[in-house]
């Protein structure tokens, strides 16, 4: 019941988010073009829910995550978190807001300061937000956090290079949890890990979600990873969301040819299922100079003339299943 109630509350709403990177050239370093890394992305996440965001590398999914947290400044759009417009907060207010939204990074090797001990790393958010009254309390909290993510508390004085990738990612998770956040953006948290470890970390994240009633934006480049953890899934291509639907709906009834192609790449354990693998032609186009019309058309096996001229809009095809494709409109 509680879940049903929670579903009705939008914790995060992203409206028409844009992040363009200028391309400078020439003697005067003028901006000659923009890389539209995120180009009008809109979605929402309900409280307690996990939204998976999937796409090939370079599609702008990580940029979306960073822009929501204002690790990058957005070019346009709105990010509404718990009713507040995050993008309009000033520096001080933003720092306060960061308590509620955290991030877990992709690379467990690069995301931990090599010159700080684990204890210091996990304690840092406590210090920044003054979440402990004294050293003793801080220590206790750090120990408790470490145990929560499955690390031995007596490793507190060790340095990151003494840990394995999976353990490091747990440290990163503990650090994110330290501020007691409501939303965690997991930016490809397992893509750098061995497959055997991946499941452990995903399980941990799921356990923690229940324990701390967390909301996740889970970013991955692979549908198989988000399958287990997500409630809904968005598919991104070239800075845009091309399809967004409930997990089951998306897997069973993919509408967009790109989603179909991605799905066809997942190995299915069921031998009965006859797999028709769709191989995408060509590479992801240069984001500085994206194709006119539907950005996917050069690689789309079913592209028509209209696809080359008009960009399709993201439309609701029932049951909260959004997709943007001209083929569906017929």
């Amino acid at each position: 019941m509680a879940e049903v109630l929670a579903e009705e509350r939008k914790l995060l709403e992203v409206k028409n988010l844009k992040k363009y990177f200028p391309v400078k050239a020439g003697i005067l370093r003028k901006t000659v073009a923009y890389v539209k890394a995120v180009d009008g992305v809109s979605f929402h996440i309900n409280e307690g829910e996990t939204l998976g965001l999937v796409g090939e590398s370079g599609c702008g999914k990580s940029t979306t995550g960073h822009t929501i947290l204002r690790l990058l400044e957005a070019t346009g759009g709105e990010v509404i978190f718990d009713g507040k417009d995050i993008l309009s907060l000033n520096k001080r207010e933003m720092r306060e807001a960061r308590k509620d939204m955290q991030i877990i990074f992709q690379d467990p090797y690069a995301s931990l300061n090599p010159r700080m001990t684990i204890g210091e790393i996990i304690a840092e958010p406590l210090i920044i937000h003054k979440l402990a009254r004294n050293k003793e309390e801080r220590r206790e909290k750090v120990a408790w956090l470490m145990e929560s993510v499955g690390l031995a508390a007596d490793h507190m004085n060790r340095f990151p290079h003494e840990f394995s990738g999976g353990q490091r990612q747990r440290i990163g998770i503990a650090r994110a949890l330290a501020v007691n956040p409501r939303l965690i953006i997991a930016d490809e948290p397992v893509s750098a890990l061995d497959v055997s470890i991946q499941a452990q970390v995903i399980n941990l994240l799921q356990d923690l979600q229940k324990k701390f009633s967390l909301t996740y934006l889970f970013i991955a480049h692979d549908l198989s990873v988000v399958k287990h953890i997500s409630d809904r899934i968005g598919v991104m291509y070239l800075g845009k969301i091309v399809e967004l639907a409930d997990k089951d709906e998306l897997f069973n009834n993919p509408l967009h040819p790109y989603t179909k192609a991605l799905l066809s790449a997942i190995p299915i354990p069921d031998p009965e299922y006859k797999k028709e693998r769709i191989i995408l032609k060509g590479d992801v186009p240069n984001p500085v100079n994206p194709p006119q019309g539907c950005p996917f058309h050069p690689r789309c096996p079913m592209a028509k003339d209209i696809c080359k001229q008009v960009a399709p809009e993201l439309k609701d095809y029932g049951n909260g299943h959004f997709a943007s494709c001209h083929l569906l409109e017929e």
Partner: protein
Amino acid sequence: MEWREIVYKLFKNKISLVGLAIIIIMALVAIFAPWIAPPRNPAEPYYIPRAGWMSEPQPPSRDHIFGTTEGQYDIFYGIVWGTRTAFMIGFVVVGASTLIGIILGTISAYYGGWIDEIIMRITDIFMSIPFTIAAIVMTTILGRGITNMMIALITFNWMSTARLMRSQVLSVKGEEFVQAARALGASDLRIIFKHVILNTIFPVVVQASMNMGSIVITASTLSFLGIGTPEGYADWGQMISFARNWIIGGQGNALKYWFTVVIPGTAITLFCLSWNLIGDAFRDILDPKMQ
């Protein structure tokens, strides 16, 4: 890597141990200078007492165990008190210019944009003035003296540190752990001090330790040009420059005045050598690929 580990490795490396030993001995000489070479006038201990006014240097004797240099300045006294000068010039100049370099380099790289542009152009401007010109003009304006000489040295010695620091910070700034700290809501100051500087400082430390030695040489060149420490001040560089007109020897004996060059020369070389050995060892230790 941890500090304790670095220190441990520093001690394990034999060659750097030699450097460390020399520095420690010199530091002891500096500390106990008033007992090793009691000043004639305690109010101005840094001025080498003169044993007369003759220009010809006098060889080592009972009264002057290292001899006297041009103008009859006692070499032993100058060497002992010069140790203090060397440390002072080294620490103050290298310390201050490294600090300036770190601050400017970090600000420039961390904030980027027009701040970076301005700071780097200022750095360019300072680099475009030949050091000797700058030092001469500055000492002319400020007046001769050790403080003014150090100010001149600091003013034109920070640029390479700033550039080094900038390139270091630029490479660290994009790292995920810095992003992580920002996501946690850490302030700029905290990010700079706790995350950025801590991860960029070591090459700067290596550079600084090597600079410790060469700055004393630079100071001696200033003395050679007549703009260094005041004449008669206990300063190795100046003592060598006193030897300038006697190095090539007396009549029929090319080595007649060897002591005016060899003794202060050895002091400078040992000082410079030790800091360089320590710096070299530092670099070998800190470079993870050397492990």
